């Protein structure tokens, strides 16, 4: 579950980053709202993620687990979509100005990957547990595991913090994107 959740974030942000530059001809020639391209990149990642979820649910059913709480999981997925979109908008706009953001992001995501409890369970105490509370991906993975694998309703505070992370990220990402957008045509 951890790797599937991480893949959605990594694919969504990776695709978003290059979507403005790879559609430079469109942006320079047509009056389109360029944020639509970022939304489409994240939806593309969501589609791939949905296929992975179908396979994952199949494995759960095969092992005798019926994911009864999958409806709530779709809500978690929506929040994760908002968070990924916020990061994607930020990366897409900054990448137009600085092309080495791709290399920097790849190093950052590798560090983030190791810091996220993807292949290991987070400790309940200590520095790791405290750091996880500031990691939005941790919330996505934890909530997904609770809902799909352990069939438990997670702590409502986890939902609230995750929604908070997603909304703040989307607002900041969109503000930066809107601020930088008028310069896209000149730089592409």
């Amino acid at each position, binding site marked *: 579950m951890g790797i599937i959740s991480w893949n959605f974030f990594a694919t969504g942000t990776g695709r978003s980053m290059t979507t403005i530059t790879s559609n430079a001809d469109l*942006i*320079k*020639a*047509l*009056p389109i709202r360029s944020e639509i391209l970022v939304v489409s990149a994240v939806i593309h990642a969501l589609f791939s993620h949905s296929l992975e979820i179908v396979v994952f649910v199949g494995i759960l059913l095969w092992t005798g687990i019926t994911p009864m709480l999958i409806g709530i999981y779709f809500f978690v997925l929506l929040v994760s979509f908002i968070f990924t979109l916020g990061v994607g908008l930020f990366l897409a706009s900054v990448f137009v100005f600085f092309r*080495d953001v791709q290399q*920097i992001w790849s190093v950052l995501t590798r560090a983030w990957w190791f810091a996220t409890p993807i292949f290991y369970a987070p400790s309940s105490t200590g520095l790791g547990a405290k750091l996880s509370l500031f990691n939005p991906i941790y919330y996505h993975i934890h909530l997904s595991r609770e809902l799909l694998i352990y069939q438990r309703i997670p702590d409502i505070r986890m939902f609230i913090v995750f929604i908070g992370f997603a909304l703040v990220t989307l607002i900041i990402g969109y503000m930066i994107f809107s601020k930088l957008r*008028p310069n896209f*045509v*000149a730089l592409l």
Partner: protein
Amino acid sequence: MSIDPVIIVEHASKTFWVHARTDGTILSRMADFLPSGSKRHHSNCINAVQDVSFEVARGEVLGIVGRNASGKTTLLRLIAGILEPDSGTVKTRGKVTSLIELSVGLRHRLSVRDNICLACSMFGMSRSDIRDAFLNILEFAGVQQYVEMYPYQLSSGMNQRLAFSIAIHTKPEVLLLDEVFSAGDIYFQKKASKKMEELICSDVTVVMVSHSIERLKELSSHIIWMDQGQIQQRGDPTTVIAAYKSALTLPAQV
């Protein structure tokens, strides 16, 4: 003041900041903070359009001439809504279709059929309008037999013909064209000119940028001569083209 203006440009200006260093990386910007950095790297301010004002009435055909980097395409992009002016206003009334770069909007991973549907929908056509116009677009571009092929499998001339054909079949009220007279071969250029004359006879407002000044003179009702982002002259085609041509005359020693 024009009667029933559909394009109103009032004191529009657009400036671009171009960094002298073009590799565009965070590392290079950090290098600017080194003792020798600020001397080596600086930004240039380019006033692409400066305090430009004019109106275009419904059904009028406006030609824009000028040397390279005189601000013609930037002005067209301001009218199309691709760029926003730094100061002043640009207003348009009615459905605007822009063909700023030929063959733009054609996605190489989509077939000709899908490209037509996508481009038409991006220009605001309904599904039934696209269905009605589909065969006409193919026929005008002369690519009927390539409908299932992909743009990268066609020649650049075919792509330009297809893009032009899509643009003129979108039932625009305002049509913005940038260097369309170079699309395709001579046969297609004649066909395109004839189609343009038909559009001009209808109620479509056209703004055309081109270096084919004789074609602009034939088709336009007014001409604007742009120079260094400003309107040098505006008036009837014969007068403005004559002035523009005389300004282009090279000194004897060159």
